[in-house]
């Protein structure tokens, strides 16, 4: 029997009066995966997370989270998920520990105070445990928010803009933590506007624009959008090399780029790469480097979102 996905959405849609926020969403997420959700503002990322978390119900369609329908049994889903909301609020007049203990107090079978102290220590906030949250910096609040999400050791994490507004060091620490959580078996749905972050963390990327435009690994998304080209850097530009390559049947296109490298499109980049190197050497070229011409994820994203807009 095929293993059941941990998260699944089937034709999931949400309307707010006349406005369609999410339209016919279909996707699955396997255990231990990190899936990055990308899309412009208002694309439906947060609404999707809220529906999967059972905070709002879908207008149509269904979802399952660890085998449970969040629209029917939201409280059961909440036992196994942690949801980092986009604007993580706190009771600012109360201490960090009191805030965490309050949230921990809603979960069965955990000692609220112990859980609060454990997570404060993990987030390097133990020495500020008794300080009012109102005195915390934005970065500290974001760490505290993540501590709150982890109080009950959830198997699934929904993170909505987790590094928004953090300084680079704090953002890196948080990314490291996400990677460590995945290593512990956590499944993560990560909504972000930070493309580099999405690419660095995600096994797959889902691009939204009210509906799901594409979902796949960053590499496959690139390949679907752009042909795989190779870049060849020579000791010196050689028109003889370019002419020699142009005559080969396995070379579909070859051109000089502004930076003096050759951009080559092969019939089969993996199979034909050794032949390419051989031909260049035979034509007298001295090769410094041959590498994949990797398009930035930003181009892939803009192409996907722009294509959808058109």
């Amino acid at each position, binding site marked *: 029997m095929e293993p059941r996905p941990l998260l699944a959405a089937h034709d999931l849609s949400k309307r707010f009066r006349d406005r369609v926020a999410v339209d016919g969403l279909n996707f699955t997420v396997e255990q231990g995966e990190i899936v990055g959700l990308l899309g412009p503002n208002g694309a439906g990322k947060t609404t999707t997370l809220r529906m999967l978390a059972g905070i709002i119900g879908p207008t149509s369609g269904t979802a399952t989270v660890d085998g449970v329908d969040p629209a029917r049994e939201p409280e*059961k889903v909440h036992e196994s998920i942690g*949801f980092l909301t986009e604007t*993580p609020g706190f009771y600012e007049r109360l201490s960090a520990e009191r805030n965490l203990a*309050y949230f921990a107090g809603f979960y069965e079978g955990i000692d609220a105070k112990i859980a609060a102290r454990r997570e404060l220590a993990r987030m390097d906030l133990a020495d500020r445990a008794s300080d009012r949250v109102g005195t915390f910096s934005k970065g500290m609040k974001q760490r505290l928010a993540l501590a709150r999400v982890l109080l009950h050791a959830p198997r699934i994490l929904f993170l909505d803009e987790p590094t928004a507004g953090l300084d680079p060091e704090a953002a890196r620490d948080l990314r490291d933590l996400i990677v460590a959580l995945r290593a512990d078996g956590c499944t993560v749905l990560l909504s972000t506007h930070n493309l580099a972050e999405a690419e660095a963390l995600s096994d797959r990327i889902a691009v939204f624009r009210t509906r799901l435009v594409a979902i796949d690994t960053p590499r496959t998304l690139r390949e679907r959008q752009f042909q795989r080209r190779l870049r060849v850097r020579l000791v010196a530009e050689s028109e003889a090399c370019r002419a020699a390559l142009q005559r080969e049947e396995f070379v579909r296109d070859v051109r000089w780029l502004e930076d003096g490298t050759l951009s080559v499109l092969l019939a089969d980049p993996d199979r034909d790469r050794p032949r390419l190197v051989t031909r260049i050497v035979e034509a007298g070229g001295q090769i410094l480097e041959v590498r994949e011409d990797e398009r930035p994820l930003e181009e892939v994203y803009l192409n996907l979102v722009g294509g959808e807009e058109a």
Partner: protein
Amino acid sequence: MKRRITNVVRMEWAGIAATPSSLLFLVVIPLILVGQALFLSWVVPRFVNPEILGPAGGNADTLRLLILRQFPFFVLLIPAMVANVFATLGIVEEKVSRTLEPLLATPVRTWELLTGKILSGAVPGLVVAWLSAGLFIAAGYALGWGALLRICLTPTFYLSLFLLMPAVSLLSFVIGVIGSSRARDAKEAQNLAMVVVLPIFAIIGLQVTGLVEFTPLRTLFLSLSLAAVDILLLRVAVRLFGRESIVTRWA
């Protein structure tokens, strides 16, 4: 279930304890109301023009008794104001500090959250009102008005204290919740919800002017009518307090 409701109540009280102004409100308003009632009962009969008491043998005690008999209705202002302030503090502040969505992502059920808030807001108002009534009676006896107070401690008094007062307290809290769902901050919510004290002034006015005398039956009827209004408004509040409303409209 009980654990989660207790958790909400304890947190609400921790929040109140961390706000000195709300503690002050909890103590000062009842003291002012009790003090005012005692002062009026003492000063008015003492300094009133004897002609007002009338030629037919009216005396200061008659006037004092008239004032003392208003107290059960006068003290209704305490739970009305306290519950209202706690409702707006407990909900608008969550709204302003954006803690409701993270709360809704925990296993707490909406009704548990609301029950916890009602218990933490309406109950202190009620307890403070009962304490105030006790203080009023004790002070009355200390001032030598025991005989007059015994006349006042009628079934109407007890019905007012133990039936009408909880109904008013809940009404005030629920209107506070409804006001909070529409308001942008605690001040605006309190302004909206303070309308709840107007009917109480009307009750006091009706009683003082003698237009309506609150017999036990009438007090019972009024209490049950208010309880019915409470149930209706509670349904409205629960709808407004629904997850989707909070996330999509309250934010």
